[in-house]
């Protein structure tokens, strides 16, 4: 019972945040609503017992990635988005199609799938176990992703650096 209440609480927060992300016209509001979504998702994770995932979710997503978004929004001083009608396809095909797909999946899940009910903390994912898995069974993917991150860092630096910056840096140094 309590479980269901908490689930609904966090779930509603999630959906509210997601919808707010859509309806808000200022990117910073969208960003904050996304932070809400992530925080409440962390709650859902806790309900499912994935405490480590929840913590990392908060730290990485809410604490780092979204801060980055906010930072960029502030940096570029992004204002309200103007309602340009660039693409009819997106509205006429995409949205209905997406809605159809979502409704179908939801209907299938609720009506047709006999998924079991899960208790609170159904699968406790404590740091030790996760870490063990991460560094034993999934060592190779782990290393590969680390390389990916390295490449991403380099790419970001290369992209964001001003064209003239290297030259000036040389002058100073």
């Amino acid at each position, binding site marked *: 019972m309590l479980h269901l209440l908490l689930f609904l609480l966090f779930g509603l927060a999630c959906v509210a945040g997601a919808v707010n992300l859509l309806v808000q016209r200022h990117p910073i509001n969208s960003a*904050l609503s996304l932070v809400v979504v992530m925080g409440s998702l962390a709650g859902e994770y806790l309900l499912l017992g994935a405490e480590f995932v929840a913590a990392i979710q908060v*730290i990485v997503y*809410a*604490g780092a990635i979204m*801060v*980055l978004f906010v*930072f960029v929004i*502030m940096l570029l001083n992004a204002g309200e988005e103007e309602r340009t009608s660039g693409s009819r396809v997106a509205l006429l095909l995409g949205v209905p199609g997406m809605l159809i797909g979502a409704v179908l999946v939801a209907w299938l899940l609720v009506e047709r799938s006999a998924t079991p009910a899960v208790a609170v903390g159904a699968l406790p994912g404590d740091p030790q176990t996760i870490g063990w898995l991460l560094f034993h069974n999934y060592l190779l993917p782990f290393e590969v992703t680390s390389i990916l991150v390295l490449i991403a860092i380099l790419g970001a630096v290369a992209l964001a650096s001003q064209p003239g910056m290297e030259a000036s840096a040389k002058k100073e140094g």
Partner: protein
Amino acid sequence: MLSITQFIVVSIVKIVVALGVLLTAVAYTVWLERKVVGHMQNRWGPTRVGPFGLLQPLADGVKFIFKEDLTPPHVHKPLYIAAPMISLIFALTAIALIPVGGWISVAGLSTPLAITPDVNIGLLIVLGIASLGVYGVALAGWSSNSKYSLLGGLRASAQMVSYEIALGLSLVGVLILAGSFNLREIVEAQSGTFWGFIPRWNIFAWPPQIVGFLVYLTAAYAETNRLPFDLPEAETELVAGYHTEYSAMKFAMFFMAEYANMITVACLASLLFLGGWSGPVAGPAIVRALLPVFWFGLRVFVFLFIYIWVRGTLPRFRYDQLMAFGWKFLLPVAIANLIITALIVALRS
């Protein structure tokens, strides 16, 4: 084990106590800072209100409350109002995870000396909440629609995100030694002594976390926007940084949030590196129960004093120096510390 109602009651009691203590501590940290810095600079500091100006914080509080709370035009109102609350809320929430002593049993109810019962990822949650604190600063800077504030917010967000990494990595060494995220377990892992006289604190342990400790300390200053890293509110460059446009209670919230954060990181430091509340205990039960809290408070006080000391001593960094220092010095050092610790532990086991 407590019943649900008992639990709620106990929790509320603990929350009230903790908040009272914390806010008082915040107020008197301010007083302490003014006094110490004053004496360092060969001044008196606050003396008028009460003996040694001991009532100065109260006066400040009253002043804050009765000031007119004005909202500049053209601000993004909801966020402008929300920002200080966000910072204060997260600053206070972080404390909730901090255990300040062992277990205490009052009237047959035994409960840990922390608002929350033991959470086995307590440290992670503390870090998470601390990392959320940046939103308050950033949003304040952005929403108050002023270039000083905006720059302050930008600096704050960039700086905090950058130093968070070094901060987190500096702690990993301790985590390896303790093998747990649970703060209480970490503290208990440090109980005892080497050869009878050296306390088994992490900074003395083998491998010693002294490097990690220093890195943590430095990063913590940056996280809390304290000198020498208080770029976001550098008076000389950006009037008052992100809270330029704030006044009265909103400003006070930022103020309190900053000092609360200081206390939080101080608590973390003493828990992780200095053996938490470990110390000689003797006497009747109640004293046995409360002495550790005293030892703990002592450590925290030392840290706060160091904060103030540094502030009175060191000049402010330039922004590019700040970033370069964080990325090019602190981070590598933290990683090196982590690697060495991991290697030694791995070889030892």
